[in-house]
C-alpha cells in the first residue's frame, strides 16, 4: 500500500468538522502525555517509534482499517519510517507532514464577522497550541492583535485581501508564545502598541497603549478602544472593536479565566484579576462578543472552528465568573495551578527583546500547550 502525506491544514479541517481520525503517535510517552493533537472524534495509540524498530506486527491488530490512520511524530522522520512499515504490512496510512513542529505552527484564519461600516474581523486559530490572534480590516487598512511569530502568514493574508497593516497590538507581554508583533511592525512600518506597565523592561521602542486610548483603522471607520484590565499581567489591556467585539486577551476565556502567576506575582495580582472580571467587564454590554487570546480545550471551538461567545453567556456559564466568595476566588487562581508553559521565562525575555534566540530555539521554547488559564 502507498503512504500519503497529510498536512496540518487537512488535520485542522478534521478537527473543525469533528471527523474521525485514528492517530498513531510515535513520540515518547511523556511528550504525548504533555501535548497531542486534539479532536472530538480522534482516537489515539501512543507507541514510541523506538519500540517499533524490530517491526510493527505487534500493533497491527490495534490499528483500525475502517477509518483514516495518521502517524505522528515530533518532526516527521520517525512517522515516515513507521508509516512505511505499516504500509509494507498492507495498511493504508498517512503521516503528518512536518510533525508536531508544523502542527504547532499552523494558523487557520476564520472570519468572525463583518463590521458595521464595512470591513471584517478575522481570527487566526493556532490550533496546535491554542493561541488566537486577530486581524481587523477596514477600508484597505488592517490592525493585528496578539500576532504569533509566524509573521509571514499575516503578511500574506493581508496582501491577499488587499489591506495594509498600519497597527499592531499585543494585549499583554506574552509568556506562552513568542510575539510576532515587533517583527511585523518593523517589516511593514506599522505602529507597535504595548501596555506600558508590561513594557518596563523592553529593549525596543513602542507606542504606549493606555486605558481609554482610541485607535482608528481605515480612516475612522473602525474604532479600537483600549480598556485597562490587569490581572494576568499588570498591564493586560482589552480592546473593544467597533463597539461589538471584546478582545479579552488572557483575562477571560470561554471556559476558563486567566492565571495571575506567570510573571511571578500571583498574590499581588489576584485582586486586579477579580476587579477586571467582576467589575470592569461587568459594566460592559452583555451583547459584546468575547474574542479571547487562547482556548484551552477543543470543546471551546464553535462549529466553524472559531472561538467566541457573548459576554452575557459567559457571565452565566463560565465558572470563573461565578465565584461569589473572594477568598475562594483567590484560592482557585493561586493554588493548584496547572504547570507553567514551557520555557515561559525565556519567552517573556524574548518578548522584551532581552534575548534573541534563533528560529530553531524559538520553536523548541514554544513546544507544548499554552497553559495560560485556570478553570
Amino acid at each position, binding site marked *: 500500500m502507498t503512504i500519503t502525506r497529510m498536512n496540518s491544514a487537512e488535520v485542522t479541517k478534521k478537527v473543525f468538522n469533528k471527523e474521525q481520525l485514528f492517530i498513531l503517535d510515535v513520540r*515518547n510517552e511523556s511528550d504525548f502525555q504533555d501535548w497531542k493533537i486534539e479532536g472530538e472524534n480522534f482516537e489515539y495509540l501512543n507507541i*514510541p517509534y523506538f519500540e517499533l*524498530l524490530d517491526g510493527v506486527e505487534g500493533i497491527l491488530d490495534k490499528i483500525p482499517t475502517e477509518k483514516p490512520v495518521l502517524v505522528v511524530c515530533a*518532526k516527521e522522520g520517525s512517522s515516515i519510517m513507521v508509516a512505511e512499515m505499516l504500509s509494507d504490512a498492507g495498511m493504508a496510512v498517512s503521516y503528518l507532514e512536518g510533525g508536531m513542529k508544523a502542527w504547532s505552527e499552523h494558523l487557520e484564519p476564520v472570519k468572525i464577522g463583518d463590521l458595521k461600516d464595512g470591513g471584517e474581523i478575522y481570527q487566526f486559530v493556532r490550533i496546535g497550541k491554542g493561541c488566537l490572534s486577530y486581524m481587523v480590516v477596514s477600508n484597505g487598512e488592517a490592525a493585528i492583535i496578539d500576532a504569533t511569530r509566524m509573521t509571514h502568514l499575516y503578511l500574506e493574508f493581508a496582501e491577499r485581501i488587499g489591506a495594509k497593516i498600519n497597527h499592531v497590538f499585543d494585549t499583554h507581554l506574552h509568556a506562552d508564545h513568542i510575539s510576532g508583533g515587533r517583527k511585523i511592525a518593523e517589516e511593514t512600518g506599522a505602529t507597535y502598541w504595548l501596555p506600558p506597565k508590561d513594557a518596563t523592561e523592553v529593549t525596543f521602542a513602542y507606542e504606549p497603549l493606555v486605558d481609554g486610548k482610541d485607535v482608528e483603522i481605515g480612516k475612522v471607520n473602525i474604532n479600537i478602544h483600549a480598556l485597562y484590565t490587569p490581572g494576568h499581567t499588570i498591564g493586560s489591556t482589552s480592546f473593544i472593536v467597533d463597539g461589538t467585539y471584546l478582545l479579552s486577551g488572557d483575562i477571560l476565556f470561554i471556559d476558563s479565566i486567566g492565571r495571575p502567576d506567570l510573571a511571578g506575582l500571583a498574590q499581588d495580582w489576584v485582586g486586579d484579576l477579580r476587579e477586571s472580571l467582576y467589575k470592569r467587564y461587568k459594566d460592559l454590554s452583555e451583547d459584546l462578543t468575547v474574542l479571547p487570546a487562547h482556548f484551552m480545550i477543543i470543546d471551546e471551538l464553535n462549529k466553524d472552528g472559531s472561538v467566541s461567545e457573548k459576554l452575557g453567556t459567559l457571565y452565566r456559564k463560565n465558572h470563573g465568573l461565578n465565584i461569589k466568595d473572594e477568598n475562594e476566588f483567590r484560592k482557585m487562581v493561586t493554588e493548584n495551578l496547572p504547570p507553567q508553559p514551557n520555557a515561559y521565562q525565556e519567552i517573556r525575555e524574548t518578548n522584551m527583546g532581552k534575548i534573541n534566540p534563533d528560529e530553531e530555539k524559538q520553536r523548541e521554547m514554544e513546544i507544548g500547550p499554552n497553559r495560560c488559564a485556570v478553570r
Partner: protein
Amino acid sequence: MEANKVLDAKGLACPMPIVKTKKAINEIESGQILEIHATDKGAKNDLTAWAKSGGHEIMKHEEENDILKFWIKKA
C-alpha cells in the same frame, strides 16, 4: 568515562540516532559502555526513554557546542 564503543550520530535526524544506537548496542556485551554523539535535540528525550524501556543505564550526559554526548551501559 571509558567507552567500549563510540557511535557518531552527528548530523543525523530522528529516527536515525536511535536506529544506529540500537544497532551499536547489539554489538557490545552486557555491562559494556557505548558512547554516543548526536546533534538532534530530540535525541535526549528519546534516548532516555529508549534506554529505560530496554533496561540500559545512562551513566553520563554532556552537552558541548551543540553536541549531545551520552554514555550508555548495556543491560
